[in-house]
């Protein structure tokens, strides 16, 4: 379907520098948005380790919690939380762009779609937090 056109003589073919993403604020924000996925993935591995430790006795569990309570890990997870929230915000905004909700002939305004997603996020988070607080 797509075939590369051979370069024509006399034309200058510019090359995109590897630092292109530093040239505009929009590009930098894009890169930050993309690396949120790295922090999220690392936390999920930590969570998986936590689940494993829960089945390996109280000493293993306490040791892991001790490690996670160290300043380095706390700082990492605070940063990770900030990135996770940035992912959520940018994701719901993108949802308004991608998902067109049609009711008969009319289209729901994007702001409503985004608002609904944010509301769902807040409610789900509150319910989950309440569950863990009540359980403890």
């Amino acid at each position: 379907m797509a075939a590369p056109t051979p370069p024509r003589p006399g034309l200058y073919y510019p090359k995109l520098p590897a630092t292109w993403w530093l040239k505009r604020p929009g590009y930098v924000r894009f890169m930050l948005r993309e690396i949120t996925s790295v922090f999220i993935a690392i936390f999920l591995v930590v969570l998986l380790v936590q689940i494993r430790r829960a089945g390996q006795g109280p000493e293993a569990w306490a040791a892991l919690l001790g490690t996670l309570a160290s300043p380095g890990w706390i700082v990492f997870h605070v940063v990770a939380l900030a990135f996770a929230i940035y992912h959520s915000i940018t994701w719901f905004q993108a949802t308004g762009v991608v998902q067109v909700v049609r009711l008969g002939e009319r289209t729901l305004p994007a702001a409503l779609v985004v608002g609904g997603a944010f509301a769902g996020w807040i409610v789900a988070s509150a319910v989950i937090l309440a569950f863990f607080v009540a359980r403890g």
Partner: protein
Amino acid sequence: MSRETITLEVTRYAAGQDREPRLESFTVPYQEDWVVLDALNYIKDQVDGSLSFRWSCRMGVCGSCGMMVNGVPRLTCAAFLRDHRPGPIRVEPLANFPVIRDLVISMDDFMDKLRRVKPWIIRDAERPVAEGEYRQSPAQLDAFKQFSMCINCVLCYAACPVYGIEPLFLGPAATALAHRYNMDSRDEGYRFRAPVIADSVGVWECTFIGECSVVCPKGVDPAAAIQRSKLASATDWARSVLMPWGGRGGDR
């Protein structure tokens, strides 16, 4: 009487003379109501007639005068000198395109991609004139109107790093125009455009950076067109995998 002036740093490139583009400085009069295009025309008229650049309507509807102004893709007929004071203002050819001469780029690749998406109404059978016109409600018009505002200025391609990295990428404007026709209630040609969209260098190279929509001078929002095309294409794909016996290939 001394006149206020401003400096422009303009790319010069001529095959045979230059191995690569270079910047040349020009001092032009500063006028409150001048745009960069006025400054370029001053240079061509009064200073160096060999300066080459495209322009036409000078009012933002033809899409001819796109260039990089201080690193940002702009229509030079809409970029005011007063917004770039004190200067110098750097004027370069649109990024990600081959340079023919000075500020003139080759649009061949875009034109090729535009043809490939078949940007016209496709119908299985044309309605005879006697049956009357195709009628569209305001809501049906709304479904595609925004994407029809594209003036093919290709600022979006200049803003898209993916196009710079992968020249085969279909790109913002071509996808937006494919989407414009797919969303038109008069059109029945979705299945002809679908393979171009669904190709690995169709929409799938896009990482939703979104700068294309930021620089678009006509509010087309090609990023939205691409993301919606991804959803449509992925839905088609899922249907073809889960229900391979399916009927007509691809519906809106």
